[in-house]
């Protein structure tokens, strides 16, 4: 187990190193001067000062080394847009709303999804199954920004039940959370339904029935755990959907989170912030994948993580 985790951690570091290198060289290649969007016309002398200030006049290998060294210390550089503001500070300042939103959507979405999938499997081929199937297809198909628009239009603009935008208290998180959790909910429900159906059709469930175990016990003592184990694997795709989701949802609801900052930085070519956020997303994704693998080993007694893959 320990050996396996160490092996995975090494992979993680390699992957992150590669991503960091790619982002660095991409930054070198990116078209146009980062100062295009400052608006004012700069003299060459002014530009020189700026270049020096951001360390862009050094030779590339030196820059690369400095960049890597800084990143190891958690320093992601200085924003082009916000004068003298460290990217790390910007991210830290804005991570709160995004994390809250993501965690709420993840927890509520996956719990509801598991429950829905279970109901669908128990009522297999009955109306509850059909309805939850249709709901799941709609949840998977319709992009979150359309859900967000519909929710905002009806619940905030028309009926005024919830505030339409900004981030000033828990009530402000209701509509964004719902918009963000639809996709995780839907994929969880589908996966759970499939797994549950497979488990319910297995020999050991039939044997449990043959032992005279009641339906409730079969469901919760025998089936649930076995069906839940594979569902952990959807955590990966769910994280990705939450990350992409925050980009659009925060924009729609004007939430001061990382996603909103990221989109804004893209439109103003604030490369250090884009790169910093990219690194953050990559780390998040890789850590989630690692957690999924380790959880799998902990929950499923069959897998003792002996270093095998897949």
């Amino acid at each position, binding site marked *: 187990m320990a050996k396996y985790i160490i092996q995975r951690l090494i992979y993680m570091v390699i992957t992150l190193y590669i991503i960091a290198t790619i982002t660095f060289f991409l930054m070198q290649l990116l078209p146009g001067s980062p100062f295009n969007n400052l608006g004012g016309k700069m003299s060459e002398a002014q530009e020189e000062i700026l270049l020096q200030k951001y360390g862009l006049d050094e030779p590339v290998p030196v820059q690369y080394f400095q960049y890597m060294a800084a990143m190891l210390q958690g320093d992601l550089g200085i924003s082009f847009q916000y004068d003298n503001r460290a990217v790390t500070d910007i991210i830290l300042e804005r991570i709160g709303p995004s994390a809250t939103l993501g965690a709420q959507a993840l927890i509520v979405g996956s719990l509801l999804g598991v429950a829905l999938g279970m109901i669908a499997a128990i009522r297999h081929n009955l109306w509850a199954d059909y309805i939850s199937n249709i709901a799941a297809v709609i949840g998977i198909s319709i992009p979150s920004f359309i859900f967000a628009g519909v929710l905002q239009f009806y619940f905030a603009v028309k009926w005024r039940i919830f505030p339409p935008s900004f981030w000033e208290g828990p009530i402000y998180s209701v509509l964004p959370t719902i918009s963000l959790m639809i996709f995780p909910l839907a994929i969880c429900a589908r996966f759970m339904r499939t797994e549950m159906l497979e488990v319910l059709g*297995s*020999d*050991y469930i*039939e*044997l*449990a*029935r*043959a*032992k*005279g*175990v*009641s339906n409730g016990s079969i469901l919760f*003592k*025998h089936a649930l*755990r*076995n069906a839940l*184990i594979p569902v952990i694997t959807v955590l990966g795709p769910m994280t990705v959907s939450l990350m992409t989701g925050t980009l659009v949802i925060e924009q729609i609801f004007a939430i001061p989170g990382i996603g909103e900052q990221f989109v804004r930085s893209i439109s103003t070519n604030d490369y250090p912030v884009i790169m910093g956020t990219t690194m953050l997303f990559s780390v998040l994704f890789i850590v989630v994948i690692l957690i999924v693998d380790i959880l799998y080993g902990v*929950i*499923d*007694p*069959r897998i003792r993580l002996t270093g095998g893959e897949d």
Partner: protein
Amino acid sequence: MIVENVLKVNDLYVTFDTYGGSVQAVRGVHFSLKKGETLAIVGESGSGKSVTTKALMGLISKPAGRITKGEILFEQQDLTKLSEKQLRKIRGKDLSMIFQDPMTSLNPTMKIGKQIMEGLILHRSMSKKEAKKRSEELLHLVGIPEPENRMDYYPHQFSGGMRQRVVIAMALACNPKVLIADEPTTALDVTIQAQILELMKDIQRKMETSIIFITHDLGVVANVADRVAVMYAGKIVEIGTVDDVFYHAKHPYTWGLLGSMPMVDSEEEQLFTIPGTPPDLTHPPKGDAFASRNKYALQIDFEKEPPMFRVSDTHYAATWLLHEKAPNLTPPAAVKRRMQGFGKDNIR
């Protein structure tokens, strides 16, 4: 001495709805099971033997499958008329079951101790402590060493043979009156097979359990069974004691089965096959279902289903060959030689 019947099945019909239409998997099965006896049900895949046992256990999956006709009398009680709740009290307690594949029939994420204890707590109202003690005894009984330590093992920590012992321990937990074993040795190595069969025979002697033994392996039948029922296309076509069926088989299908069986010391250079495939039970053929594969088919086989003809008090077979007007046909010489050559040592 009259030995009472523990179980009696009368005219049982089971139907399944599938994409292609309704399959009549079991079409009028009759048999009875006496106390302490072992009845083997043999037949090829799809002959309805497994479905019959599932019907006995009340495990036909609704709503696709259902018992359309007939009764299953267990201690004068018709199981087909009981509610799911009443059935649950009998299942696992009086009737219990061993499945074919020990690799899939244990819950992979539950400790085996807990899986054995479950039935005891449920049916015998034991405390956890008592159940644990009894489970350890059971594990010992089925020949698992160090039962105290093994209670906390997960199924994947056991080999296939060991797992099947655990399944048997589970099935025996509540001293069932009838034990249904659905091909319990098919998935195991030959040496392990012999051990498991010995174990079952041993336990039967100790506990006086009646056993229904489903198999397609005639060697196993000769080894464990008192009586044999041969199933074909959802019906029992021949039933009798082991001697009746192995030495005096009357049904051409039984002849075919015997002829297709490999023997250790056989001088026959060739095994027989039964040509063709079993009929499609969504549309059972008119007349005898075996007729189209039967070398000895009579005209009437294609028109009318044969009734069960009595051969002796213990031996019945459903073939028109036993009718008084039928020509006196005998099994092929090779099969005959085999029938004479049967001795228990001779069978693998």
